């Protein structure tokens, strides 16, 4: 965590770059919503959201630099259990033969 072990250049540039990427992402997802991409509509929207969320986590929340393995493990672990919840519930909903 101790980011002040610094020496390096200030991270401001990176922060602003991420910020603009997030704004662009927002614009992009709004734009993509006006296109009919058929079955890819949801995938594109969620894909962009995931990229944005990843940017926030990695750079604004410092998961990329300045974090120990444990932090990464917590994040990945939580996402894993979220996928379990969604995925295993879907095993039921995706294979119900009767209504």
């Amino acid at each position, binding site marked *: 965590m101790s980011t002040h072990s610094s020496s390096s250049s200030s991270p401001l540039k990176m922060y602003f770059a991420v910020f603009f990427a997030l704004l662009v992402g927002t614009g992009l997802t709004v734009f993509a919503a006006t296109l009919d991409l058929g079955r890819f509509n949801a995938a594109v929207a969620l894909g962009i959201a995931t990229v944005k969320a990843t940017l926030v986590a990695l750079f604004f929340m410092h998961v990329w630099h300045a974090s120990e393995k444990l932090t990464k493990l917590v994040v990945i672990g939580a996402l894993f259990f979220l996928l379990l919840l969604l995925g295993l519930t879907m095993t039921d*909903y*995706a*294979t*119900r*033969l*009767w*209504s």
Partner: protein
Amino acid sequence: MLNNFPLWPQQASTLAGRVDALYVFLLIVTGMMTLLIFICVVYFAARFRHRPGVRAEQIEGSTPLEITWSAIPFLVFMVIFAWGAVVYFKERTPPADASEVYVVAKQWMWKVEHAEGQREINELHVPVGRDVKLIMTSQDVIHSFYIPAFRIKQDVLPGRYTVEWFRATKPGIYHLFCAEYCGTQHSGMVGDIVVQEPAQFEAWMNGGSSGPLSASGEKMFAELGCATCHRNDAGGRGPNLKGVFGKPVQLEDGRTVTADENYLRECILDPGAKRVKGFQPIMPTFQGLVSEEQVNALVAYIKSISSANAGEGVKSSASAATPQSAGKVQPNGSQVQ
């Protein structure tokens, strides 16, 4: 004495033996396991009890041993799992030509209607040796139709059909329980399953029925105005319903579904959900206008005008959770191919 102190439930269906066999197998396996552990514990506890001057021997552990006693139980578990799955599929797959009984559960009674039109409350008469399929729905909360002597149970849900089946093997009167907690009189939601010899059953059947269920469905079909749109030719504003049951239906949005009981039910109660290709969305919803029993009658009627030419091998997939009929599934509807 044993009448007051039973230790084993009666066996009165073809499934009972299968379930009991697995149960006995499990009793033996787990019994042996328990015995093994108990004997080890008791023996070690006695043999290695503290004696002055004797110290415990420190043992680190043993990986081969660990692997053995993880792998062997796991293999045993897989046998149990597979056996259990086989029995389950049997339980969940009604034979194609089973006679049908419609069941409506409500707080706190069972309303039963045979396809032939006989109605009963908290009682179900069935003959020995015939496959019977129950098509069940609930008017309010979740209930569960449980016949211990047949070893079958299935929750009965509001808003859709669930199915179970059995073939009785022994005449007699058996318990019927509601097994899912459903409110105040949950424990009063009990009844009797009366299994009779075929001849007796026929006699019972013939005693004062209002005609087959499909017949009252037919009457309702006319009274509710269904017939104005659904005519027996291609000229109606709605599709011709003759022969739809069990067949694949092309939907407006490109999907194909099999017309099973749940599909018919949904068409009547929520026509917008699955629209048949090539028709206007003009069919009104009958939600709230028809009771569960009336829906059952309509469904039975639509099935009856299909069964004459319903292709063989087409099985109602309301029941059918057979592996072969796997496919994508829709929410409140049916199978999508």
